[in-house]
């Protein structure tokens, strides 16, 4: 593994020194490109009270390529599929090298507050979210209790 670019070092330092409220991102002890992330379910969302684990990996050509991010904790959300993959434009074609780990995590947090069933990744969830939102929200709360609240 090549030496860690200055950009990654700087971003890591800042993430530790001034963490984003409601988000913790800690680099792995053996791999500085791999981050253990915990996102707190935003207030007034069906995910409130939950702690969601994610993994974030910075590929070799980061920041020219987007970081790879995935939910580890199961979550009932129209833009997140069974494997935890996230449908978010800035992780794909709207990625810009000027964006940072911090902005990515903030966008993910915002996605939990404002699900977008019109650009779905989990089709069945998105479908229910559109035709019966209150039932979908009940499911999301149920999943949050079941998978994101142990201890």
């Amino acid at each position: 593994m090549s030496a860690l670019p200055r950009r990654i070092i700087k971003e890591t330092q800042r993430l530790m020194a001034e963490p984003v409220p409601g988000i913790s991102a800690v680099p792995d002890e053996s791999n500085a490109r791999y981050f253990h992330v915990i996102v707190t379910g935003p207030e007034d969302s069906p995910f409130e009270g939950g702690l969601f684990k994610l993994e974030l990996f910075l590929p070799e050509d980061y920041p020219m390529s987007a970081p790879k991010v995935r939910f580890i904790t199961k979550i009932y959300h129209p833009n997140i599929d069974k494997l935890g993959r996230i449908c978010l434009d800035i992780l794909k074609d709207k990625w810009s090298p000027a964006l940072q780990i911090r902005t990515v995590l903030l966008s993910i947090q915002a996605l939990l507050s404002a699900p977008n069933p019109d650009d779905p990744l989990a089709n069945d969830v998105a479908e229910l979210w559109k035709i019966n939102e209150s039932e979908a929200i009940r499911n999301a709360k149920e999943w949050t209790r079941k998978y994101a609240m142990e201890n």
Partner: protein
Amino acid sequence: MDGCAEDSADSEGDYSEDDFDSYYHPGGDYIDTEDGQTSADSADPELFPVECLTIEQVENLLNEAVNAVCHSLNTSPSLAKLFLLIHSWDVQKVISGYKADVSSFLATSRVITAGCNCALAQPSLLHNHLAPAAADTVNEDSFVCPVCTCAAPGKSALSLKCQHVFCVDCWTAYVQVKISEGLSTDITCMAQNCDLLVHEEVALQLPISNYHKLQYQHFSFHNYVMSHPQLRYCVGPNCSLVFKAPEALAKRVVCRQCTSVFCFKCGNSYHAPTDCGTIKNWLTKCADDSETANYFSAHTKDCPNCNICIEKNGGCNHMQCYKCKHDFCWMCLGDWKGHGTEYYECSRYKENSETANESAKARAALRKYLHYYERWQNHAKSLKLEEKTLEKIKERINQKVMNGSGTWIDWQYLLDAAALLAKCRYTLQYTYPYAYYMNQESKNLFEYQQAQLEAEIENLSWKIERAETTDRGDLENQMYIAEKRRKTLLKDFFQT
């Protein structure tokens, strides 16, 4: 890069296997000349002056347009290419658009940010985007590249006209990553939500690797061809030939290198008399409904007379039961006798007026679709089977010539007949999607002509399969009639 050779005069007398094959393409044009002797009058509805270009010829063609724009607007070739790419290689449109309003033209071409006046202030410096970051906006000594967070010595920080400044190392790494992703003329500024384009000159002046440079040139050439309305890549999977036509019409292109036959306008398999939109709908529908329809396109049917199971092993729809010798039609299972004169009863679908409720409507819709789908599929299958028939004909001819009965030229008419049959049946196959979507008013005339064509094709197929016992003049007459029916139908219904 050959296969571009024009139809060379066939050296009659020595037919190799290759000659046989080149005669057997639905797009073969020999029959048109034969036809021309008898009816030089009317224009061929399929005539289309399409040229096959070498890569060099394509480059020359593109460069001509680029030079015209450079000369008229006094811009760099790189910017001219960008303008032309965005404006479908319309030189006049680029020149007049630029002259009408430089600022808005440059903004829509994604060279400057909308509303910025820099272009008007320094029109002659347009091409000079790779200048060091403007000293009045960035203090060179304290500049820190926002991407790598390194302090960049003044000389190596750059921006496009948007003034989003980054260091050269970052630009280089970024452009290389984008090229690796297959991008070229479509690479945008590194800043978030900035859609200004890193045009060719900027990308290639960066210290990117030679490998990336070549890749860039390769991809951008591809984009230029794709954006040019008069140019088309061959649709063949491993074929890179480029075709040129004066207009993007829904006409037939035959690739002599890979034998693909496709529509110049949409790139699907050639589909006359059906138009591009209709064939797209039809193919999508077939893909969606294929499971329902599969059942109906089975290879076997029972003889309507003695009920023995009959396998279709030739292309002809005129079946004869091997047991009871009953002649019947494969498609409608009706007696063949009635088909000689009133064959159209078989190809015409009768709309059922009793559509009382919704489910009956759905069933009627499926029945209607299956009627056309079955015939569409059936002719596709016949085409395949007739290819096998052609193989047999070649063998038989070989034997005959080797046994001293006739020369290759004597038997050429049989190969011509087989090729014409393929061409006619191909058109016939594509009349079914047309009929499926057409409105009731003109349907009767269309289906009448379709039935006529179908009848003549089945006659021709029958005669070719029994060529030994068919008189040559009789066969050639049948060829003439079938091709005439095909052309008439295209003339009346094929709109490109």
